[in-house]
Protein backbone atom coordinates (compact mmCIF):
# COMPACT_ATOMS: atom_id res chain seq x y z
CA UNK A 1 0.00 0.00 0.00
CA UNK A 2 2.78 2.44 1.02
CA UNK A 3 6.27 1.98 -0.33
CA UNK A 4 9.41 3.87 0.60
CA UNK A 5 12.27 3.28 -1.83
CA UNK A 6 15.85 4.11 -0.94
CA UNK A 7 15.07 7.35 0.88
CA UNK A 8 17.82 9.80 1.71
CA UNK A 9 17.17 12.98 3.65
CA UNK A 10 19.74 15.71 4.23
CA UNK A 11 19.17 18.84 6.27
CA UNK A 12 22.01 20.95 4.92
CA UNK A 13 25.14 18.96 5.63
CA UNK A 14 23.37 16.79 8.22
CA UNK A 15 22.51 13.37 6.77
CA UNK A 16 19.46 12.11 8.67
CA UNK A 17 18.31 9.23 6.45
CA UNK A 18 20.89 7.29 4.46
CA UNK A 19 18.96 4.95 2.24
CA UNK A 20 15.80 3.53 3.80
CA UNK A 21 13.56 1.05 2.01
CA UNK A 22 10.40 -0.37 3.50
CA UNK A 23 6.75 -1.00 2.78
CA UNK A 24 3.45 -0.94 4.64
CA UNK A 25 0.76 -3.46 3.79
CA UNK A 26 -2.98 -2.95 4.19
CA UNK A 27 -4.13 -3.61 7.76
CA UNK A 28 -0.59 -3.71 9.08
CA UNK A 29 0.44 -1.95 12.29
CA UNK A 30 4.09 -0.92 12.18
CA UNK A 31 6.03 0.67 15.00
CA UNK A 32 9.22 2.60 14.40
CA UNK A 33 11.54 2.66 17.40
CA UNK A 34 14.98 4.13 18.02
CA UNK A 35 16.84 6.74 20.03
CA UNK A 36 16.12 10.46 19.67
CA UNK A 37 17.76 11.85 16.56
CA UNK A 38 17.95 8.45 14.87
CA UNK A 39 15.77 9.69 11.98
CA UNK A 40 12.58 7.81 12.87
CA UNK A 41 10.35 10.88 12.86
CA UNK A 42 11.97 12.09 9.66
CA UNK A 43 11.23 8.72 8.05
CA UNK A 44 7.56 9.03 9.04
CA UNK A 45 7.40 12.63 7.81
CA UNK A 46 8.95 11.57 4.49
CA UNK A 47 6.07 9.12 3.99
CA UNK A 48 3.55 11.96 3.53
CA UNK A 49 6.15 14.39 2.21
CA UNK A 50 5.98 16.82 5.11
CA UNK A 51 9.70 16.37 4.57
CA UNK A 52 10.60 15.97 0.92
CA UNK A 53 13.23 13.22 0.57
CA UNK A 54 16.54 14.38 -0.89
CA UNK A 55 16.75 11.16 -2.94
CA UNK A 56 14.46 8.16 -3.28
CA UNK A 57 10.81 7.66 -4.03
CA UNK A 58 7.59 7.26 -2.06
CA UNK A 59 4.74 5.28 -3.60
CA UNK A 60 1.18 5.08 -2.31
CA UNK A 61 -1.27 2.58 -3.83
CA UNK A 62 0.90 2.29 -6.92
CA UNK A 63 1.14 6.06 -7.36
CA UNK A 64 4.36 8.07 -7.19
CA UNK A 65 4.32 10.97 -4.71
CA UNK A 66 7.90 12.22 -5.06
CA UNK A 67 9.83 13.26 -8.17
CA UNK A 68 11.37 10.36 -10.12
CA UNK A 69 14.69 9.21 -8.67
CA UNK A 70 16.78 8.14 -11.69
CA UNK A 71 19.01 5.89 -9.55
CA UNK A 72 16.00 3.60 -8.99
CA UNK A 73 15.46 3.17 -12.75
CA UNK A 74 18.37 1.46 -14.60
CA UNK A 75 16.61 2.06 -17.92
CA UNK A 76 16.84 5.79 -17.25
CA UNK A 77 20.51 5.65 -16.34
CA UNK A 78 21.21 3.72 -19.54
CA UNK A 79 20.07 6.61 -21.75
CA UNK A 80 22.07 9.21 -19.83
CA UNK A 81 25.13 10.97 -21.29
CA UNK A 82 27.14 9.95 -18.24
CA UNK A 83 26.41 6.25 -18.85
CA UNK A 84 27.27 6.50 -22.55
CA UNK A 85 30.50 8.30 -21.73
CA UNK A 86 31.51 5.50 -19.34
CA UNK A 87 30.71 2.84 -21.99
CA UNK A 88 32.86 4.78 -24.46
CA UNK A 89 35.68 4.71 -21.90
CA UNK A 90 35.51 0.91 -21.97
CA UNK A 91 33.29 0.17 -18.94
CA UNK A 92 30.90 -2.77 -19.18
CA UNK A 93 27.19 -2.13 -18.61
CA UNK A 94 27.34 -3.50 -15.05
CA UNK A 95 30.49 -1.59 -14.18
CA UNK A 96 29.07 1.64 -15.52
CA UNK A 97 25.85 1.28 -13.51
CA UNK A 98 27.82 0.46 -10.39
CA UNK A 99 30.17 3.42 -10.84
CA UNK A 100 27.31 5.83 -11.40
CA UNK A 101 25.50 4.57 -8.29
CA UNK A 102 28.59 4.63 -6.11
CA UNK A 103 29.58 8.18 -7.02
CA UNK A 104 26.20 9.86 -7.69
CA UNK A 105 27.46 10.75 -11.14
CA UNK A 106 24.14 11.75 -12.77
CA UNK A 107 23.80 15.49 -13.34
CA UNK A 108 21.07 17.17 -11.34
CA UNK A 109 19.78 19.07 -14.34
CA UNK A 110 17.80 16.63 -16.51
CA UNK A 111 18.70 18.32 -19.76
CA UNK A 112 22.40 17.89 -18.96
CA UNK A 113 21.95 14.13 -19.44
CA UNK A 114 20.45 14.50 -22.91
CA UNK A 115 16.94 14.69 -24.41
CA UNK A 116 16.26 10.94 -24.21
CA UNK A 117 16.99 10.97 -20.48
CA UNK A 118 14.83 14.02 -19.90
CA UNK A 119 11.95 12.56 -21.91
CA UNK A 120 12.07 9.21 -20.11
CA UNK A 121 12.12 10.90 -16.68
CA UNK A 122 9.05 12.91 -17.66
CA UNK A 123 7.33 9.84 -19.09
CA UNK A 124 7.75 7.86 -15.86
CA UNK A 125 6.61 10.84 -13.80
CA UNK A 126 3.53 11.54 -15.90
CA UNK A 127 2.50 7.90 -15.97
CA UNK A 128 2.70 7.38 -12.22
CA UNK A 129 2.47 10.68 -10.42
CA UNK A 130 -0.30 11.58 -8.01
CA UNK A 131 -0.96 15.04 -6.56
CA UNK A 132 0.43 15.11 -3.03
CA UNK A 133 -2.65 16.83 -1.57
CA UNK A 134 -4.86 14.07 -2.91
CA UNK A 135 -2.55 11.41 -1.49
CA UNK A 136 -2.37 13.06 1.92
CA UNK A 137 -6.16 12.92 2.27
CA UNK A 138 -5.76 9.14 2.41
CA UNK A 139 -2.88 9.11 4.93
CA UNK A 140 -3.55 11.50 7.73
CA UNK A 141 -1.05 12.24 10.44
CA UNK A 142 -1.24 12.62 14.22
CA UNK A 143 1.40 14.86 15.77
CA UNK A 144 3.27 14.89 19.06
CA UNK A 145 2.03 18.44 19.75
CA UNK A 146 -1.58 17.63 18.64
CA UNK A 147 -1.70 20.73 16.40
CA UNK A 148 -5.44 21.20 16.67
CA UNK A 149 -6.51 24.34 14.81
CA UNK A 150 -6.54 27.01 17.53
CA UNK A 151 -8.99 29.25 15.68
CA UNK A 152 -11.64 26.54 15.36
CA UNK A 153 -13.90 24.72 17.79
CA UNK A 154 -13.52 20.99 18.38
CA UNK A 155 -16.35 20.20 15.97
CA UNK A 156 -14.95 22.58 13.33
CA UNK A 157 -11.54 20.95 13.74
CA UNK A 158 -13.02 17.56 12.89
CA UNK A 159 -15.19 18.87 10.04
CA UNK A 160 -12.74 21.29 8.44
CA UNK A 161 -10.71 19.02 6.16
CA UNK A 162 -13.69 16.92 4.93
CA UNK A 163 -15.63 20.10 4.07
CA UNK A 164 -12.71 21.70 2.24
CA UNK A 165 -12.13 18.43 0.40
CA UNK A 166 -15.78 18.38 -0.69
CA UNK A 167 -15.28 21.92 -2.01
CA UNK A 168 -12.13 20.86 -3.91
CA UNK A 169 -14.15 18.04 -5.46
CA UNK A 170 -16.89 20.48 -6.51
CA UNK A 171 -19.57 18.54 -4.66
CA UNK A 172 -22.88 19.90 -5.99
CA UNK A 173 -25.05 19.72 -2.88
CA UNK A 174 -22.73 21.26 -0.27
CA UNK A 175 -25.56 21.59 2.24
CA UNK A 176 -26.24 17.86 2.25
CA UNK A 177 -22.50 17.13 2.28
CA UNK A 178 -22.01 19.39 5.29
CA UNK A 179 -24.88 17.78 7.17
CA UNK A 180 -23.43 14.36 6.49
CA UNK A 181 -19.95 15.44 7.61
CA UNK A 182 -21.36 16.99 10.77
CA UNK A 183 -23.28 13.84 11.63
CA UNK A 184 -20.15 11.80 11.14
CA UNK A 185 -18.10 14.23 13.23
CA UNK A 186 -20.61 13.98 16.08
CA UNK A 187 -20.52 10.20 15.77
CA UNK A 188 -16.72 10.24 16.11
CA UNK A 189 -16.86 12.63 19.07
CA UNK A 190 -19.38 10.34 20.73
CA UNK A 191 -17.08 7.40 20.17
CA UNK A 192 -14.41 9.05 22.30
CA UNK A 193 -16.98 10.44 24.77
CA UNK A 194 -16.26 14.09 24.05
CA UNK A 195 -19.45 15.17 22.28
CA UNK A 196 -20.12 17.75 25.02
CA UNK A 197 -16.85 19.47 23.99
CA UNK A 198 -18.03 19.99 20.41
CA UNK A 199 -18.34 23.78 20.77
CA UNK A 200 -15.24 24.23 22.96
CA UNK A 201 -11.96 25.69 21.71
CA UNK A 202 -8.79 23.56 21.89
CA UNK A 203 -7.17 25.87 24.48
CA UNK A 204 -9.73 24.68 27.06
CA UNK A 205 -8.91 20.96 26.69
CA UNK A 206 -6.45 18.64 28.40
CA UNK A 207 -3.58 17.12 26.43
CA UNK A 208 -5.23 13.71 26.34
CA UNK A 209 -8.49 15.19 25.04
CA UNK A 210 -6.61 17.21 22.41
CA UNK A 211 -4.77 14.17 21.14
CA UNK A 212 -7.91 12.01 20.96
CA UNK A 213 -9.63 14.78 19.01
CA UNK A 214 -6.60 15.05 16.73
CA UNK A 215 -6.94 11.32 16.09
CA UNK A 216 -10.63 11.53 15.14
CA UNK A 217 -9.87 14.63 13.05
CA UNK A 218 -7.63 12.32 11.03
CA UNK A 219 -10.22 9.55 11.09
CA UNK A 220 -12.85 11.91 9.68
CA UNK A 221 -10.96 11.80 6.37
CA UNK A 222 -11.51 8.01 6.11
CA UNK A 223 -7.78 7.47 5.66
CA UNK A 224 -6.26 4.29 4.26
CA UNK A 225 -3.30 4.66 6.55
CA UNK A 226 -2.64 6.73 9.66
CA UNK A 227 0.77 8.06 10.64
CA UNK A 228 1.46 8.70 14.33
CA UNK A 229 4.47 10.84 15.26
CA UNK A 230 5.19 10.15 18.95
CA UNK A 231 1.52 10.67 19.84
CA UNK A 232 1.99 10.30 23.61
CA UNK A 233 5.37 11.99 24.12
CA UNK A 234 3.91 15.40 25.02
CA UNK A 235 1.27 13.98 27.39
CA UNK A 236 1.19 13.88 31.16
CA UNK A 237 1.58 10.25 32.31
CA UNK A 238 -2.03 9.91 33.49
CA UNK A 239 -3.30 10.82 30.00
CA UNK A 240 -1.17 8.42 27.99
CA UNK A 241 -3.54 5.51 28.71
CA UNK A 242 -6.63 7.09 27.12
CA UNK A 243 -4.75 7.86 23.90
CA UNK A 244 -3.16 4.41 23.67
CA UNK A 245 -6.58 2.83 24.31
CA UNK A 246 -8.05 4.67 21.33
CA UNK A 247 -5.12 3.61 19.15
CA UNK A 248 -5.53 0.00 20.30
CA UNK A 249 -9.17 0.12 19.22
CA UNK A 250 -8.17 1.48 15.81
CA UNK A 251 -5.58 -1.27 15.39
CA UNK A 252 -8.13 -3.91 16.40
CA UNK A 253 -10.58 -2.48 13.84
CA UNK A 254 -8.04 -3.14 11.09
CA UNK A 255 -6.68 0.37 10.50
CA UNK A 256 -3.31 0.48 8.78
CA UNK A 257 -1.00 2.36 11.13
CA UNK A 258 2.61 3.53 11.23
CA UNK A 259 3.61 4.63 14.71
CA UNK A 260 6.78 6.34 15.87
CA UNK A 261 6.79 5.69 19.59
CA UNK A 262 8.79 5.38 22.79
CA UNK A 263 6.08 3.21 24.39
CA UNK A 264 7.80 -0.15 24.06
CA UNK A 265 5.07 -2.12 25.83
CA UNK A 266 2.46 -0.69 23.49
CA UNK A 267 4.61 -1.27 20.39
CA UNK A 268 5.15 -4.88 21.39
CA UNK A 269 1.45 -5.43 22.03
CA UNK A 270 -0.15 -3.89 18.92
CA UNK A 271 2.51 -4.11 16.19
CA UNK A 272 2.67 -6.65 13.42
CA UNK A 273 6.17 -5.47 12.60
CA UNK A 274 8.74 -3.26 14.29
CA UNK A 275 11.44 -1.22 12.58
CA UNK A 276 14.53 -0.26 14.54
CA UNK A 277 15.88 2.94 13.00
CA UNK A 278 19.39 3.99 13.95
CA UNK A 279 21.94 6.39 12.48
CA UNK A 280 19.75 6.93 9.41
CA UNK A 281 19.26 3.25 8.53
CA UNK A 282 16.73 0.55 9.36
CA UNK A 283 19.15 -1.53 11.37
CA UNK A 284 16.72 -4.33 12.21
CA UNK A 285 13.18 -5.23 11.30
CA UNK A 286 10.88 -8.01 12.49
CA UNK A 287 7.91 -9.15 14.53
CA UNK A 288 7.69 -7.90 18.11
CA UNK A 289 8.87 -11.31 19.32
CA UNK A 290 11.94 -11.27 17.09
CA UNK A 291 12.83 -7.70 18.06
CA UNK A 292 12.30 -8.00 21.80
CA UNK A 293 13.28 -11.66 22.41
CA UNK A 294 16.05 -12.13 19.92
CA UNK A 295 17.62 -8.83 18.85
CA UNK A 296 20.71 -9.25 16.64
CA UNK A 297 21.96 -5.73 16.04
CA UNK A 298 24.23 -4.64 18.91
CA UNK A 299 22.84 -1.09 18.85
CA UNK A 300 19.29 -2.51 19.17
CA UNK A 301 20.36 -4.68 22.11
CA UNK A 302 21.92 -1.65 23.74
CA UNK A 303 18.79 0.43 23.06
CA UNK A 304 16.44 -2.21 24.46
CA UNK A 305 18.55 -2.69 27.59
CA UNK A 306 18.13 1.02 28.27
CA UNK A 307 14.40 1.37 27.63
CA UNK A 308 13.02 -1.90 28.97
Amino acid at each position, binding site marked *: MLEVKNIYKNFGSLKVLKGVTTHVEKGEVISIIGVSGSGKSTLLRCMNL*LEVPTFGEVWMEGKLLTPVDPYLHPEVIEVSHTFKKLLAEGYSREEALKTIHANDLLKEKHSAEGPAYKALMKEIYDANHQDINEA*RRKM*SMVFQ*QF*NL*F*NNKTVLENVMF*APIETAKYNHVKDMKAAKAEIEERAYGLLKRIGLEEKAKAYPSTLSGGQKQRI*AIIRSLA*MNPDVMLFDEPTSALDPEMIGEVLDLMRKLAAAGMTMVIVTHEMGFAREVSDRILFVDEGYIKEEGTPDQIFRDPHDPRLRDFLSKVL
Partner: protein
Amino acid sequence: MTITEILRSMWNIFVTYYIGQGLLLSGLGYTLALSAIAVVAGAVLGALLAIIKRSGFKPAIWVISAFVEILRGTPALLQLYIAYFLIPMMLGVPGMSPFTCVAIALSLNSAAYVSEIIRSGIEAVDKGQTEAARSLGLTSRTTMMKIVLPQAIKNILPALGNEFIMIIKETSLASTFFVGEMMTTYLTVRGLTFNALPTLLDIGIVYFVLTFSLSKLMGVFERRMKASA
Protein backbone atom coordinates in the same frame (compact mmCIF):
# COMPACT_ATOMS: atom_id res chain seq x y z
CA MET B 1 5.91 85.09 31.04
CA THR B 2 4.31 83.46 34.04
CA ILE B 3 2.47 80.17 34.02
CA THR B 4 -0.88 81.92 34.25
CA GLU B 5 -0.01 84.13 31.28
CA ILE B 6 0.93 81.08 29.27
CA LEU B 7 -2.26 79.30 30.23
CA ARG B 8 -4.31 82.38 29.36
CA SER B 9 -2.58 82.69 25.98
CA MET B 10 -3.15 79.01 25.31
CA TRP B 11 -6.84 79.45 25.99
CA ASN B 12 -7.12 82.65 23.96
CA ILE B 13 -5.27 81.24 20.97
CA PHE B 14 -7.28 78.04 21.09
CA VAL B 15 -10.60 79.86 21.20
CA THR B 16 -9.74 82.58 18.70
CA TYR B 17 -7.80 80.68 16.08
CA TYR B 18 -8.46 76.99 16.55
CA ILE B 19 -12.18 77.23 17.23
CA GLY B 20 -13.01 80.67 15.88
CA GLN B 21 -11.11 80.37 12.62
CA GLY B 22 -11.66 76.65 12.30
CA LEU B 23 -7.96 75.70 12.38
CA LEU B 24 -8.65 72.77 14.72
CA LEU B 25 -11.07 71.17 12.30
CA SER B 26 -8.99 71.76 9.18
CA GLY B 27 -5.73 70.76 10.92
CA LEU B 28 -7.22 67.60 12.40
CA GLY B 29 -8.91 66.86 9.07
CA TYR B 30 -5.63 66.95 7.16
CA THR B 31 -3.78 65.01 9.86
CA LEU B 32 -6.40 62.27 9.95
CA ALA B 33 -6.75 62.18 6.17
CA LEU B 34 -2.99 61.83 5.70
CA SER B 35 -2.77 59.16 8.42
CA ALA B 36 -5.74 57.21 7.11
CA ILE B 37 -4.40 57.25 3.54
CA ALA B 38 -0.95 56.20 4.72
CA VAL B 39 -2.26 53.44 6.97
CA VAL B 40 -4.74 51.99 4.47
CA ALA B 41 -2.46 52.26 1.43
CA GLY B 42 0.45 51.12 3.62
CA ALA B 43 -1.51 48.11 4.85
CA VAL B 44 -2.60 47.05 1.35
CA LEU B 45 0.84 47.59 -0.15
CA GLY B 46 2.55 46.08 2.90
CA ALA B 47 0.35 42.97 2.70
CA LEU B 48 1.18 42.69 -0.98
CA LEU B 49 4.91 42.95 -0.27
CA ALA B 50 4.63 40.35 2.50
CA ILE B 51 2.77 37.94 0.20
CA ILE B 52 5.25 38.38 -2.66
CA LYS B 53 8.10 37.90 -0.22
CA ARG B 54 6.58 34.63 1.00
CA SER B 55 6.16 33.37 -2.55
CA GLY B 56 9.87 32.60 -2.59
CA PHE B 57 10.67 34.27 -5.95
CA LYS B 58 14.28 35.29 -5.31
CA PRO B 59 14.69 38.50 -7.39
CA ALA B 60 11.41 39.87 -6.00
CA ILE B 61 12.55 39.07 -2.47
CA TRP B 62 15.82 40.96 -2.98
CA VAL B 63 14.06 44.03 -4.37
CA ILE B 64 11.47 44.08 -1.58
CA SER B 65 14.04 43.49 1.16
CA ALA B 66 16.13 46.39 -0.18
CA PHE B 67 13.02 48.61 -0.32
CA VAL B 68 12.04 47.73 3.25
CA GLU B 69 15.54 48.13 4.67
CA ILE B 70 16.14 51.49 2.98
CA LEU B 71 12.81 52.95 4.08
CA ARG B 72 13.27 51.70 7.62
CA GLY B 73 16.88 52.82 7.76
CA THR B 74 16.57 56.45 6.63
CA PRO B 75 14.78 59.38 8.33
CA ALA B 76 11.15 59.88 7.30
CA LEU B 77 11.79 63.62 6.87
CA LEU B 78 14.53 62.86 4.37
CA GLN B 79 12.16 60.52 2.51
CA LEU B 80 9.53 63.29 2.35
CA TYR B 81 12.07 65.71 0.87
CA ILE B 82 13.21 63.18 -1.71
CA ALA B 83 9.61 62.23 -2.56
CA TYR B 84 8.73 65.89 -2.92
CA PHE B 85 11.19 66.19 -5.80
CA LEU B 86 11.29 62.64 -7.10
CA ILE B 87 7.64 61.56 -7.25
CA PRO B 88 6.34 64.39 -9.53
CA MET B 89 9.36 63.77 -11.75
CA MET B 90 8.87 60.00 -11.93
CA LEU B 91 5.12 60.21 -12.47
CA GLY B 92 5.52 63.02 -14.99
CA VAL B 93 3.16 65.34 -13.08
CA PRO B 94 5.15 68.58 -12.54
CA GLY B 95 2.48 70.51 -10.62
CA MET B 96 1.66 67.70 -8.13
CA SER B 97 0.34 69.05 -4.84
CA PRO B 98 2.54 68.68 -1.74
CA PHE B 99 -0.33 66.83 -0.08
CA THR B 100 -0.28 64.11 -2.77
CA CYS B 101 3.51 63.81 -2.59
CA VAL B 102 3.48 63.55 1.19
CA ALA B 103 0.60 61.05 1.13
CA ILE B 104 2.47 58.82 -1.32
CA ALA B 105 5.72 59.06 0.62
CA LEU B 106 4.09 58.29 3.96
CA SER B 107 2.20 55.37 2.37
CA LEU B 108 5.44 53.87 1.07
CA ASN B 109 7.12 54.39 4.42
CA SER B 110 4.21 52.77 6.21
CA ALA B 111 4.16 49.87 3.72
CA ALA B 112 7.74 49.04 4.66
CA TYR B 113 6.83 48.78 8.33
CA VAL B 114 3.51 47.02 7.74
CA SER B 115 5.08 44.35 5.53
CA GLU B 116 7.41 43.50 8.42
CA ILE B 117 4.47 43.50 10.87
CA ILE B 118 2.55 41.07 8.64
CA ARG B 119 5.58 38.87 8.01
CA SER B 120 6.35 38.50 11.71
CA GLY B 121 2.64 38.05 12.48
CA ILE B 122 2.46 35.13 10.07
CA GLU B 123 5.73 33.64 11.27
CA ALA B 124 4.52 33.80 14.87
CA VAL B 125 1.77 31.27 14.07
CA ASP B 126 2.94 27.82 15.17
CA LYS B 127 4.38 25.80 12.28
CA GLY B 128 2.39 22.82 13.55
CA GLN B 129 -0.83 24.53 12.41
CA THR B 130 0.39 24.55 8.82
CA GLU B 131 1.72 21.00 9.05
CA ALA B 132 -1.57 19.70 10.43
CA ALA B 133 -3.55 21.36 7.64
CA ARG B 134 -1.18 20.20 4.90
CA SER B 135 -1.07 16.66 6.30
CA LEU B 136 -4.86 16.51 5.89
CA GLY B 137 -4.45 17.23 2.19
CA LEU B 138 -5.44 20.89 2.25
CA THR B 139 -3.80 23.16 -0.30
CA SER B 140 -1.30 25.80 0.78
CA ARG B 141 -3.86 28.42 -0.20
CA THR B 142 -6.63 27.02 2.02
CA THR B 143 -4.11 26.57 4.82
CA MET B 144 -2.99 30.19 4.56
CA MET B 145 -6.46 31.72 4.18
CA LYS B 146 -8.40 29.69 6.73
CA ILE B 147 -5.88 28.53 9.32
CA VAL B 148 -2.77 30.73 9.37
CA LEU B 149 -4.10 34.21 8.50
CA PRO B 150 -7.06 34.17 10.94
CA GLN B 151 -4.55 33.40 13.71
CA ALA B 152 -1.94 35.84 12.38
CA ILE B 153 -4.52 38.67 12.36
CA LYS B 154 -4.56 38.51 16.14
CA ASN B 155 -0.84 39.29 16.17
CA ILE B 156 -1.05 41.79 13.33
CA LEU B 157 -3.97 44.06 14.32
CA PRO B 158 -2.53 45.43 17.58
CA ALA B 159 0.79 46.16 15.87
CA LEU B 160 -1.10 47.80 13.00
CA GLY B 161 -2.86 50.04 15.54
CA ASN B 162 0.51 51.13 16.93
CA GLU B 163 1.66 51.83 13.39
CA PHE B 164 -1.41 54.06 12.92
CA ILE B 165 -0.41 56.07 15.99
CA MET B 166 3.18 56.31 14.76
CA ILE B 167 1.94 57.63 11.42
CA ILE B 168 -0.31 60.22 13.06
CA LYS B 169 2.78 61.60 14.76
CA GLU B 170 4.85 61.36 11.60
CA THR B 171 2.34 63.40 9.57
CA SER B 172 3.65 66.43 11.53
CA LEU B 173 6.69 66.24 9.24
CA ALA B 174 4.37 67.27 6.41
CA SER B 175 4.32 70.78 7.86
CA THR B 176 7.70 71.23 6.17
CA PHE B 177 5.70 71.43 2.94
CA PHE B 178 2.88 73.47 4.47
CA VAL B 179 0.31 70.77 3.83
CA GLY B 180 -2.24 72.11 6.31
CA GLU B 181 -2.25 69.38 8.97
CA MET B 182 -2.00 70.14 12.71
CA MET B 183 1.66 71.08 12.72
CA THR B 184 1.16 73.47 9.80
CA THR B 185 -1.46 75.34 11.85
CA TYR B 186 1.32 76.13 14.32
CA LEU B 187 3.24 77.96 11.59
CA THR B 188 0.08 79.85 10.62
CA VAL B 189 -0.84 80.90 14.16
CA ARG B 190 2.73 81.81 15.08
CA GLY B 191 2.83 84.09 12.05
CA LEU B 192 -0.33 85.87 13.27
CA THR B 193 0.38 86.06 17.02
CA PHE B 194 4.19 85.87 17.29
CA ASN B 195 3.48 83.72 20.36
CA ALA B 196 5.06 80.31 19.73
CA LEU B 197 5.02 78.46 23.06
CA PRO B 198 1.27 78.56 23.87
CA THR B 199 0.47 77.52 20.30
CA LEU B 200 2.85 74.56 20.51
CA LEU B 201 1.34 73.50 23.84
CA ASP B 202 -2.15 73.70 22.35
CA ILE B 203 -1.13 71.50 19.47
CA GLY B 204 0.63 69.11 21.83
CA ILE B 205 -2.61 68.64 23.74
CA VAL B 206 -4.55 67.98 20.53
CA TYR B 207 -2.02 65.34 19.36
CA PHE B 208 -1.96 63.72 22.77
CA VAL B 209 -5.74 63.54 23.11
CA LEU B 210 -5.93 62.04 19.62
CA THR B 211 -3.28 59.34 20.08
CA PHE B 212 -4.18 58.57 23.70
CA SER B 213 -7.87 58.00 22.96
CA LEU B 214 -6.94 55.91 19.92
CA SER B 215 -4.64 53.66 21.92
CA LYS B 216 -7.30 53.23 24.64
CA LEU B 217 -9.84 52.37 21.97
CA MET B 218 -7.48 49.77 20.57
CA GLY B 219 -6.93 48.34 24.03
CA VAL B 220 -10.67 47.67 24.31
CA PHE B 221 -10.72 46.16 20.83
CA GLU B 222 -7.75 43.92 21.63
CA ARG B 223 -9.31 42.58 24.83
CA ARG B 224 -12.51 41.75 22.95
CA MET B 225 -10.53 39.93 20.29
CA LYS B 226 -8.65 37.89 22.89
CA ALA B 227 -11.91 36.97 24.58
CA SER B 228 -13.29 35.56 21.32
CA ALA B 229 -10.96 32.52 21.45
